[in-house]
């Protein structure tokens, strides 16, 4: 949108002025300027290092320490065996299911919203997905307790038509997975929508002019262009599902062995006092998976940016 300032600048005669102000001030060594320039990034860099970097390193280091500070592999060995290994498997399964299913459905929903003409619909969907994806956890768990627990509204409806859920169905793996969909789907819609905006109508028109049918457009144009983004977003959902804690905690009070829940138990001293370092070894496991996920995500993102410039 053109502002008055912009207009004025475009007026003849002022153009030179603007470009002149860009020239480097004379008489300073370039490397010094470079250093001074990077100084502007210092607050952000320091903050991130202090509150993201240092804690992560502390966990990684703590994973290899005895409670007294000596070096040991014992924590990692304990973390790699039952019951913690089961927790890892269960967590990975849950993350896999709750990333692939919303990963696919989310694209369809985002596309349906994207192609609809109602701005009100888009506005509702974009704001709702922001809130649901961010609000995660506890509040959503309680919505579902009201819906599908033993006395839940939908449970009663289902009973009326002759389907009876096993008691505590909501608190099993399937139930937790369903609740995860409630924040994973909006998250997918949120992060995939910008990519849909990058699909140019001209591509569709061009393929139609060349005689392509709808499925051919998706097979040879739209699909390949979107694929890296969709895969990348699905990977992010995987990471998000893997690290989610609040929902499962609020729903099951820890009856399903998930790694984040196990970490929470260990740290709260619910298991054996003095096992804090085992908790960090479990955290190390999560961090390793996440690092792999993020590396692949970055690679896919680079590939995606070839066609879809934001």
């Amino acid at each position: 949108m053109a502002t008055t300032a912009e207009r004025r600048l475009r007026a003849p005669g002022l153009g030179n002025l603007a470009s002149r102000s860009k020239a480097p001030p004379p008489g300073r060594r370039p490397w010094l300027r470079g250093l001074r320039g990077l100084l502007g990034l210092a607050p952000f860099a320091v903050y991130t290092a202090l509150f993201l970097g240092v804690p992560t390193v502390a966990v990684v280091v703590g994973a290899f320490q005895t409670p007294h500070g000596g070096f040991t592999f014992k924590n990692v060995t304990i973390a790699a065996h039952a019951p913690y290994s089961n927790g890892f498997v269960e967590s990975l399964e849950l993350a896999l299911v709750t990333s692939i299913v919303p990963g696919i459905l989310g694209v369809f929903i985002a596309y349906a919203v994207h192609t609809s003409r109602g701005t009100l619909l888009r506005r509702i969907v974009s704001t709702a997905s922001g809130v649901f994806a961010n609000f995660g956890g506890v509040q959503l768990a309680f919505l579902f307790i009201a819906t599908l627990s033993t006395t839940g509204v939908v449970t009663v409806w289902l009973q009326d038509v002759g389907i009876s859920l096993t008691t505590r169905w909501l608190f099993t793996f399937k139930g937790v997975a369903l609740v995860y969909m409630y924040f994973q789907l909006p998250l997918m819609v949120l992060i995939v929508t910008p990519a849909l905006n990058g699909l140019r109508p001209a591509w569709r028109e061009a393929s139609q002019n060349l005689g392509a049918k709808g499925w051919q457009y998706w097979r040879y144009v739209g699909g390949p262009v979107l694929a890296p983004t969709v895969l990348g977003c699905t990977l992010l959902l995987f990471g998000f599902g893997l690290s989610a804690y609040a929902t499962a905690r609020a729903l099951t009070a820890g009856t399903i062995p998930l790694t984040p829940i196990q970490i929470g138990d260990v740290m709260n001293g619910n298991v054996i006092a003095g096992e804090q370092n085992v908790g960090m070894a479990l955290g190390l496991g999560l961090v390793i998976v996440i690092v792999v996920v993020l590396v692949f995500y970055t690679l896919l993102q680079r590939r995606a940016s070839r066609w879809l410039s934001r």
Partner: protein
Amino acid sequence: MVVAVATTIAAEAKAPSGRPSGRLSLSRLRWWRGVVLVLTGIFFLLPLYAALRFALENNLGHLTSAAFSAIPHMTGFLSALYLSLRLAAVTMVITLVLMVPTTIYVHLKYPRLLVAFDAITLLPIGIPPIVLIIGVLQSAPFVLKSSPYLLSLEYVILAMPFAYRSLDAGLRAIDLKTLVEASRSLGGRWISTMWRVIVPNLRTALASATILSLALVLGEFTMASLDLYTTLPVWVVNTDAVTAHVSVAVSFLSLVLTWFLLLALSAIDRRQFRKVRVVDEET
């Protein structure tokens, strides 16, 4: 967690050109679109409806607003809400003070670093909050550990991915370079350029980033519970043992209110946008 409602709001503003033209294979498109939207609507509205009904029913099945009117009188509710709001305020201030200048700076001086910035600001999505908080409790000095505001300092990290993304989207939507050069060449100092030229242009991005951090803080449970502070979500979980109806009522209210706040914001933004365009055409 994430990402930018602002991106979508901003994109929405310029979207019409990006939409595939609807007339092509319209009929086929229409029915599947309808099916998808209706099913999604049911999936998302059903639990909200169920929660409302659950909160409005007492144990005998009669309709009553008792659960809602009981909320303010529950022990600990007001102090939990107050704590959450204070944490949210501190989080929002730090996020804005830290992220706004940094994002503007990178856009102006180091556009090549934007890709790296995208990656860095994604890290907090990956690192699980539970790992982050145990690391923090392990490494933070005692002064910080004894204060609830330690949580705010970490919430800034959790909020970073979408705060950055909404600011980024906002900055991409304006012609930042021209604005800055114009202001500088007219004699504006850096501070006044930021405050009087850039920030007013970023109003929507700032507001949506702020409201989403509010949503994040009001919903964050993991860190608060491990740091042993009773914020709103922690209180909701603890209260469940006493009365599930009130827990559900609070959950419903906090979700719906935040949503309406964001929806109202996007509506206001829409109207402003239109006004600007009309003025533009008149001049």
